[in-house]
């Protein structure tokens, strides 16, 4: 796998950043939807606070991982106060690189008997 220094410089990602990238991988979401999606995926084990979410969003926007999108849902489903975010191609590449890194870590842990073999 070729290494991109811009991507490598961001790894390992903070857990909140990775969760947000995963939440935006499926579709564009607003802040509260991101929190709900992460809670649902993790069986309510990870519930981001508003402060953590928006600090992460600010940094991720500066790093080019996500961007605010102008596309909005149908007016009857929309709330004008909401801002929607989407994954950028760079964000997607970083999320894949982090996933590979985590998978490698899990493989290493399995080889050492620290994690159960894949079912």
């Amino acid at each position: 796998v070729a290494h991109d220094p811009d991507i490598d410089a961001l790894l390992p990602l903070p857990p909140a950043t990775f969760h947000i990238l995963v939440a935006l991988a499926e579709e564009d979401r607003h802040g509260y939807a991101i929190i709900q999606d992460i809670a649902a995926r993790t069986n309510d084990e990870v519930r981001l606070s508003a402060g953590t979410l928006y600090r992460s969003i600010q940094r991720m926007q500066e790093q080019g991982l996500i961007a605010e999108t102008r596309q909005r849902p149908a007016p009857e489903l929309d709330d004008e106060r909401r801002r929607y975010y989407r994954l950028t191609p760079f964000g997607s590449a970083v999320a894949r690189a982090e996933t590979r890194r985590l998978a490698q870590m899990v493989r290493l842990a399995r080889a050492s008997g620290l994690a159960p073999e894949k079912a």
Partner: protein
Amino acid sequence: MRAYRFLLYFYPAGFRAEYGDEMCAIFARRRQNASGLASVASLWVGAVADNVTTAWRVHGDILRQDLRYTARSVMRSPGYAVAALLVTALGIGATTAAFSVTDHVLVRPLAFANSDRLVKIWERQPQYPRMELSPANFRDLKARASSFEAMAAYVSRPVNFVGRRDPRRLEGAIVTADLLPMLGVRPVIGRLFAHDDDREGAPGTLLLSQRIWQSEFGADPGVLGQVVRLDDATFSIIGVLPAGFNFPARDVEIWQPARFRQVLFEDRRDNYLQAIGTLRPVVSIDQARSDLNVIAEDLARTYPKENSQTRVSVIPLRDELGPQTRLLLTALFGAALSLLLIACTNLASLLLARVLGRRGELAVRTALGAGRERLVRQLLTESLLLSLLGGVIGRCSRPQGFRCWSGSYPWRSP
């Protein structure tokens, strides 16, 4: 919700403007979902903790960003940075050095035991208001004075020192056995002088400074009892005095006991001893002065040829500086403050010139969406960083200026 909005004031204004409404909306939803007093209370505790801790992190993010930007900006114009640093360092260095000397000399109590009761004793003649004491007069004053808890004498005496290495010329002092306990000094190793060390014909003993113990003997505790040569006589080392004990001079390295020979008491005009004393707790300085002058008048009657006009002055040790010296120190501090003001003015002019030169850059940043708060914060960070670095350089250069100015007030300096 107003309370929650208040919590958002912990964040920078830009962050609040960008995300404040959404954060409020999220909190409102969670508040709707919370039922029962316990869950509402838990929600609020969580919100306070979250906003306070995250706000600090957001401020930290911005600070890091500003510092990176400042570093890049300084690299682009190193001449400006060097000039600003030098101006700041000069102003802060001179002011801290002058303040340190003034503080130690005029403000702080002396770093000795019972420093408020320590006094300096001078002989006084009509032509000479402050003269050293002769050994005979010191002996008689000490023996007969009732106002003093202790009285001791000393004289500076440089010596040729031959230890383990090459011979060296060292600053030294000859002191009576009472002096060191009176000042409350405790040896690092060994002991202080006992009265037996201080009598005529006693074997030579000496105390080393910690500095010379480390440089000459490698801080070897086995140094006690070793014999060294001072000038043409041998002395055995009995102890080491702690670093920071600078009496009677800043650079004194060797102390030896006075061991007055009888012949020294024969001439009352042989004035070379400096004398200090500790007043008894209930005795005022005026009472001590009267006490000593009664003895001096009695000595004048007994030894009219040498002592007819000899009286005694007693002044607090910390007031030993004359009014002229005090004025000089105050003026020095004032001059250093003026220098700081000049440095500040120059720095302000430099900063102003720089900001004027960066108008284009600031306009572009404003056009790209940077708010006034963000720009002010960036410029403030830049100025504060330069001031801080200048301050550090100034603070590091302080010891040089401090040594230069504090040489005249040895035992008052740290």
